[in-house]
């Protein structure tokens, strides 16, 4: 009778240990990324000089200290640019609600002829907090974009009626101003909300 009790007790102890081991393995197992691509090694950004929404210089040190999401687009873009910014803004709102760290969002306008700092300020404020716009000379824009493998090109048009073809990728920059990860197009809010906290912990 006693040995049967010992056997049962031993079995229960083993069961408990197995359960604890399973729970621990689940807790420490990293959740997978839904969409983002994490760079094997973060890459320092090139030096660049753009203009912020006040017309003041915007250089690489402005990216130090915070996580940033960069998107290359333009304000006359009717579809993919506002849709992407809308997705980023809503993802940021959801991260805020769940108490996660928040990346700042930057629209890098590849249409400096039409997107003055004042136009960018008026545009980005419509998407809520944490979003701002920068632009600059075409050589500086090309230098920065090229360093990420981002492409843009003015499409033919008449007078002011033209479009700009551009990469639709969203780039994640870490607080050391290094290129850390990217989200290929098309974007998805759930994926952003899942992946950003994972990426910003690394």
């Amino acid at each position, binding site marked *: 009778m006693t040995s049967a009790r010992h056997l049962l007790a031993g079995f229960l102890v083993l069961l408990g240990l197995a359960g604890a081991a399973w729970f621990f393995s689940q807790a420490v197992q990293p959740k997978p990324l839904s969409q983002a691509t994490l760079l094997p090694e973060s890459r320092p950004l090139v030096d660049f000089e753009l203009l912020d929404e006040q017309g003041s210089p915007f250089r690489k040190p402005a990216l130090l200290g915070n996580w940033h999401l960069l998107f290359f687009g333009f*304000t*006359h*873009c*009717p*579809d*993919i640019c*506002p*849709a992407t910014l*809308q*997705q980023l*803004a*809503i993802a940021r709102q959801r991260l805020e609600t769940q108490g996660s760290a928040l990346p700042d969002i930057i629209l890098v306008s590849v249409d400096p002829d*039409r997107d003055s700092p004042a*136009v960018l300020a*008026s*545009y980005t404020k*419509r*998407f*809520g907090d944490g979003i701002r716009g920068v632009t600059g000379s075409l050589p500086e824009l090309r230098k920065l974009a090229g360093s990420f493998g981002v*492409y843009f090109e003015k*499409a033919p048009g008449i007078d002011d*009626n033209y*479009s700009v*073809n*551009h*990469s*639709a*990728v969203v780039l994640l920059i870490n607080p050391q101003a290094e290129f850390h990860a990217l989200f*290929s*197009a*098309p*974007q*998805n*809010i759930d994926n952003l909300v899942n992946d950003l906290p994972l990426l910003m912990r690394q």
Partner: protein
Amino acid sequence: MRILPLLLCSLAALGACTQDKSGELRIVDAFAYAPITENSPAVAYFTLHNDSNADITIHAFKSRLFARAEMHETLIENGQSSMSPVTELRIEAGKTLHLQPGGMHLMLMQAHLSVSAGNPDTLTIAYNTNQTVVAEVTLRDRLADPASVGER
């Protein structure tokens, strides 16, 4: 009989109602986003059903609020986004065409007056020889309307 759909539209107080004058081309789920700034474009999305047994060719769009209404298609290939004008659109008999964020869309430019979210607009689509179909849409604010955010 044509009064019934209009009455239903009014009662439902939806953002988009459709008046199909021909019975061949039907527009549903129409919505539009207001311009974000004074000079940026508005954009409209909807679904077109060709209920007839013949192909339909759409050749023009008109907006009551905007001087220019152009169909464009956003293409994303290898992460690169480009936008091409669509001057003529063919919908095969019995088929459906979706205009949606990140794809085909109606770009609305050069507002006659200052427009903003809440303003109603009337979109007219001309097809075949001289037929038209009309959709009423109310311009929405992008951030106030997260449910319809563009994802495909």
